[in-house]
């Protein structure tokens, strides 16, 4: 037991994936064949012994509620602690713009009544087999007020408007947080997670709210010198989904066996909403290479270098390459897909040919029939 509670902040960074986040928050974007992005943060918390988890919810909640239900699938349907949904305040009579500080502020009671001394705040856009035990220990040992997790990665993602970079000074002090397009240099990417004492978080929320600051992280960035901060280099596999390109790239990265191993090797499991699916079915004529395939899919054609979610069907003679097909995608006979992302319930009729490019995958909206 590590005396920490968790908050997953879903209010920031919506609309990041264009068509894919049109009808759902980033947190419930399907990823890796059977998961939603939030599964990685939630599983990381549960696997790190954090069993009091608040979900700072955005306006769009249908897919979130459908996915999380009681929290049972993450062993969070508990009598003491467990999963708490922290809804936004919609504002009367005029709707208010989305704003995580106001959402935190409206849910201060949840923080106050929680027994834990520390709070780990994270984003739903980090994908990894996350270990929070070591960072929490490091935070407590360091005596810092706030610990920010980061990872040094190549700079190719810097053009993503939704990523953040840390400036790290001597003694691992965080001297600045830069966002998106402002971040024209640096490779120390903020890993979406910070740790602090509960009283300090409550104070920060009240402070930002009083000043009218809309984003907690922006508010923090503006007053870093007031605190003893510490940057913690996260060493495990970490993918950050900020934009469509990174979404596509990190789905494709799962096809590297070492990435698959890093994410899914036992004993720390990634939990998700359970559905009792049948095994995937391969017919006599199927040809499948370099692929990730989930339950209840039926493959009669050719699939190469692709990620297939649950209940996908690929018809006879169809060819699917370097594509991501979400649940219930139907690919008709002799259809050809290359560099395509099909959202849920997409149907490609017989013989259609669709191509994107490695840099700009073609995205088909949920329920599209081509």
């Amino acid at each position, binding site marked *: 037991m590590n005396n920490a509670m968790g908050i997953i902040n879903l209010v920031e960074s919506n609309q990041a994936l264009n068509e894919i986040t049109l009808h759902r928050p980033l947190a419930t974007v399907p990823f890796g064949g059977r998961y939603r992005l939030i599964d990685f943060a939630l599983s990381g918390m549960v696997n790190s012994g954090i069993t009091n988890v608040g979900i700072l919810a955005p306006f769009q909640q249908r897919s979130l509620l459908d996915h999380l239900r009681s929290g049972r699938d993450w062993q969070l349907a508990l009598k003491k602690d467990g999963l708490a949904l922290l809804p936004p305040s919609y504002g009367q009579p005029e709707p208010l713009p989305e704003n995580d500080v106001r959402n935190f502020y409206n849910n201060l009671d949840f923080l106050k009544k929680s027994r834990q001394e520390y709070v780990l705040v994270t984003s739903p856009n980090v994908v990894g087999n996350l270990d929070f035990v070591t960072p929490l220990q490091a935070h407590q040992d360091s005596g810092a007020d706030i610990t920010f997790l980061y990872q040094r990665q190549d700079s190719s993602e810097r053009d993503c408007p939704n990523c953040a970079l840390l400036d790290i000074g001597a003694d691992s002090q965080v001297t600045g947080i830069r966002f998106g397009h402002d971040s024209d240099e640096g490779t120390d990417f903020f890993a979406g997670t910070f740790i602090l004492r509960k009283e300090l978080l409550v104070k920060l929320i009240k402070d930002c709210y009083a000043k009218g600051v809309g984003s907690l992280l922006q508010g923090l960035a503006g007053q870093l010198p007031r605190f003893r901060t510490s940057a913690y280099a996260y060493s495990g596999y970490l993918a950050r989904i900020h934009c469509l390109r990174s979404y596509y790239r990190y789905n494709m990265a799962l096809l590297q*066996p070492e990435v698959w191993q890093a994410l*899914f090797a036992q004993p720390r*499991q990634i939990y998700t909403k359970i559905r009792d699916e*049948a095994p*995937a079915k391969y017919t006599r004529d199927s040809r*499948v290479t370099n692929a990730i395939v*989930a339950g209840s899919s039926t493959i009669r054609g050719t699939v190469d270098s692709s990620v*297939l979610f649950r209940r996908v069907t690929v018809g006879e003679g169809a060819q699917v390459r370097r594509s991501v097909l979400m649940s219930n995608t139907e690919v008709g006979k002799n259809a050809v897909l290359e560099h395509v992302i099909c959202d849920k319930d997409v149907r490609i009729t017989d013989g259609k040919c669709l191509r994107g490019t490695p840099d700009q995958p073609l995205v088909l909206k949920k329920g599209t029939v081509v």
Partner: protein
Amino acid sequence: MKDCVAVILAGGQGSRLSVLTKNLAKPAIPFGGRYRIIDFSLSNCYNSAIDTVGILTQYQTFALHSHVGGGKAPELPSYNGGVFILPPYLKESGGEWYKGTANAVYQNIEFVDRYDPKYLLVLSGDHVYKMDYRPLLSFHQEKEAEITIAVVAVPWEEAGRFGIMNIDQDFRVTEFEEKPAKPRSNLASMGIYVFNWPAVKAYLMADEQDGSSSHDFGRDVIPRMLREGRSMFAYPFEGYWMDVGTPESLWKANMDLLREDAPIELRDQLWPIYTVDPVRPPHYINNAAVTRQALVSEGCQIYGEVENSILFPGVSVGPGAVVKNSVLMPNATVGANTVIMAAIIGSETHIEENCAIGLNDPAQITVVGQGLSIPGNTTIHGAGDFPAGRGSDE
């Protein structure tokens, strides 16, 4: 008061399955890439809206109990119903193992009485089939029967292996013959019975006092009810029904699922087969792999060649390995360049490199038990079990 309470007889050892049931009750044997055999009768209950189910267990109960989940069945009510695991227990007067199928229900009269049902549905946890029990119950009511036995037509040449029902044109049972040498009907009992609860309760209590009885429904209670002229009907079931009692029938029932016209559709969203999610990632198929005519589950990693086979969750097939016409149970691993033909490999068994297993003969299935480590370059040729159970020629 409930209309119907179901009990599933799940205490059988299934000794003809030899090494596979060494540490596992037969209803807990993995089946179809994702399930255990009991999932089929239990899902039939859920899908037939039977909301109170007792599972009678006594042999190697751990895997079975943890699979059924201590009564937490999300599809059933948590109030006034649910799934209950019922092993033998100590009473004030002492306790004893279940002596037979009838005695198992006799020992749980209190459980059934608690719901005071009109009908008791007795099922077997050993069978693979999809069946809506509601038409069976309606048939029982329409015929004003005291006992209805579900029957299925079997090939005439195999009828001698079953309990055979002779019936009149109204489906009334006139005679019951256990494994007849010269069958006069090919309607075999499926081991599925609907009883009027008060009627069968009296027979169970009488049977318990009968020192010469083996306390079995098929051998004792049902013949006695027929003898004493109770109103007994046969309900004809049409569809796939398989008692996977031997390695060959277990293998064949699995292979049936791989056919294009598979007799059981596992993907039917209107009749889902509920099971326990293994919480594993989607499976991975390598660049050099070949996967044809196969059912593959979560968490598998395929680097070699898999054809006409069923892979349960967490199975890995190494580079250059060949798996054909085989069933690999959960977390079995196959080392590089190992060849497996027409075999059943038990759960958690690790076969290292360059082994050769199986004869590739449907009449001679090779069975490798669970939790074994088979060192590299081992040859297990020959029908039978490893380690020897049924007479392996090792």
